[in-house]
């Protein structure tokens, strides 16, 4: 589904990603962990087409296409979804209107007719229940005045509405209390199908108690320095990141 080869990227001239390779197959959940500043969010930014990241080397192939050549909105319509670390507020634009526009853009892309108002509202209702989002949220302006937890739940709700093939969750767990964390994780698990994939970016192992990854990668200083099964997350939780840092440094010395 997604093949990243030797990806190097910089922001404002500073090299952040220093050669990343990653292969995500349909149905897989990949967790990307790592200390602050290791390049996790930059990787997400590259995948969704943010302009402030300059790609200096490498390729990214998504469903057989060169992802790096696609406009941000086309990547979205091709099924890439980003759960934002800091969801953006858009005052005066209701969630209903926002989601209706987005869903119908996706449908247009697939050659489908726009949904009727009643079908759309029905879909909203179903998805709201699925992700246990308060139905009042949907009548408010996009993220305006939402609490941190509400914003994150709203991201999961949007993901449920847009049914992505590849969802990237950028620290969706940060700032969530345990109940919200459970709701977010349940939402992900309900949306999970054998043919869609997730990249879950997180600091902590906590989220991975609920969303069980197939593969865990550790990103450090712009490189993936360790890849293993889900047990790696537990090891990190126990020992912190210092041992990884040491290992990396020793390798360089050796």
């Amino acid at each position: 589904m997604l093949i990243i080869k030797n990806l190097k990227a910089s922001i404002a001239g500073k090299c952040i990603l220093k050669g990343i390779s990653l292969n995500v197959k349909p149905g897989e959940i990949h967790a990307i962990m790592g200390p602050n500043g290791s390049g996790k969010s930059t990787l997400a930014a590259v995948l969704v087409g943010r302009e402030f990241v300059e790609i200096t080397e490498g390729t990214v192939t998504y469903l057989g296409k060169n992802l790096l050549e696609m406009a941000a909105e086309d990547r979205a319509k091709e099924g890439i979804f980003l759960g934002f670390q800091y969801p953006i507020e858009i005052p005066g634009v209701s969630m209903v209107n926002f989601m209706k526009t987005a869903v119908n853009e996706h449908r247009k892309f697939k050659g489908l007719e726009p949904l009727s108002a009643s079908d759309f509202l029905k879909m909203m209702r179903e998805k709201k229940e699925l992700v246990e989002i308060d139905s009042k949220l949907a009548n408010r302006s996009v993220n305006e005045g939402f609490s941190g937890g509400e914003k994150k739940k709203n991201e999961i709700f949007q993901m449920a509405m847009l049914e992505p093939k590849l969802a990237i969750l950028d620290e969706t767990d940060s700032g969530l209390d345990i109940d919200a964390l459970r709701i977010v994780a349940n939402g992900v698990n309900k949306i999970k199908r054998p043919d869609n994939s997730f990249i879950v970016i997180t600091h902590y192992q906590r989220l991975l108690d609920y969303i069980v990854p197939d593969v865990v990668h550790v990103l450090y200083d712009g490189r993936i320095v360790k890849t293993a099964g889900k047990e790696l997350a537990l090891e990190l939780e126990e020992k912190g990141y210092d041992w990884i840092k040491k290992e990396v440094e020793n390798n360089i010395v050796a």
Partner: protein
Amino acid sequence: MEKDQDKILSEVTTGEYKYGFYSDIEMERIPKGLSEDVVRLISAKKMEPEWLLEFRLKSYRHWLTMKMPTWPNLKIPAINYQEIIFYAAPKQRTNVNSLDDIDPELRKTFDKLGIPLTEQKHLAGVAVDAVIDSVSVKTTFKETLAEMGIIFCSFSDAVKEYPDLVKRYMGSVVPYTDNFFATLNSAVFSDGSFCYIPKGVRCPMELSTYFRINSANTGQFERTLLIADEESYVSYLEGCTAPSRDENQLHAAIVEIVAEKNAEVKYSTVQNWYPGDKEGRGGIFNFVTKRGMCKGENSKISWTQIETGSAITWKYPSCILRGDNSTGEFYSVAVTNNHQQADTGTKMTHIGKNTKSTIVSKGISAGMGQNSYRGLVKVLKNATNARNYSQCDSLLLGDKCGAHTFPYIEVDNQTAIVEHEATTSKIGEDQIFYCNQRGISTEDAIGLIVNGYAREVINKLPMEFAVEAQKLLQISLEGSVG
């Protein structure tokens, strides 16, 4: 993003102003220029009574003593009044009763503008007075309305048929000495709409006037007079367009509203005059005086305006709150893109006790556009317990445009409460990207964000207009962010 910008820009250069066409209608025009003779000629063309000619001459003589105001935050090129044609009318008999009498070319024009001159069933909710250049060509649903005692007709017809009403109210809210452009209008006004809602009547349909400038080198000077008698209600709409031309054209109108005891008037404008091209060539100078008088107790006047057109807009729809407990409202969205300039706002004059006013102004600047809000809240000595709330927001798209706010507050009564809030914001790249990431194009994202910003005002418009206004906002801002 650069690719997007190119795409959007090319769409704009080909899309442009939708109503810029010119209709080849047989017209009667008087020679260009302004003099006492021209004023007399206009009056004679309209076969006016002596008292109206006197009013015009009095105004013209006063105008000669006046100078164009320099206080607006606008760069206005010199206007040569001797180069303007002050009267142009289609050759057909004006304001006909039967559709068959209308010049087919004229009908086609209004069809193209989407303005129905026929009383179609599915449009039964709106009565239209269609004004082209200097005359009204057709007023629909006149008879239906007349059954309820509502008078809705062209100003010229009102002068003939209801001279007492016209005499009594014309100039009572905007006196002929009011300001440079109002005085000019009082001298040379040609047509416009007249409306009277009798005591206790709720007007069952939206009344509307559609203004079209068609002829070249012609100015449009119309007058609208709207009287809501005691306990009555009316919602009034106004729309306007003009052909795309390289020279500027002057539009100097007057709207006067009188609301008697317990009456309510809602006046909505979607102003879409030709704004000029991308380099700032051409476009309408829209210098308009609009004022309402809340004359009786508990009366209410509400102005809503969506201003997207005109090269230069100079306009302050205002309320004089004379009746006790009367209410004035002003909701405005003004867009300036490319080289457009707008200096717009309102005046709320509190005279009666317990009078209330609300001002919500949303300015949107893009391209090289300059957008100024100018407002005065004045509370007179006897206006006990006056309340005002003002909110002025400015939204900037790009870094070459400007937003300015000039709020004036004069309070002569200690019990008054006057609140003013102002914000300036930029459309964030983050907001646009958030939309992009959900599959929404940059252009649609801007439309969505701007409409969200303006929602408070758009919600005040009648339904049919609200949808139009939303589309218009999006079109007028196309290509403003890359």
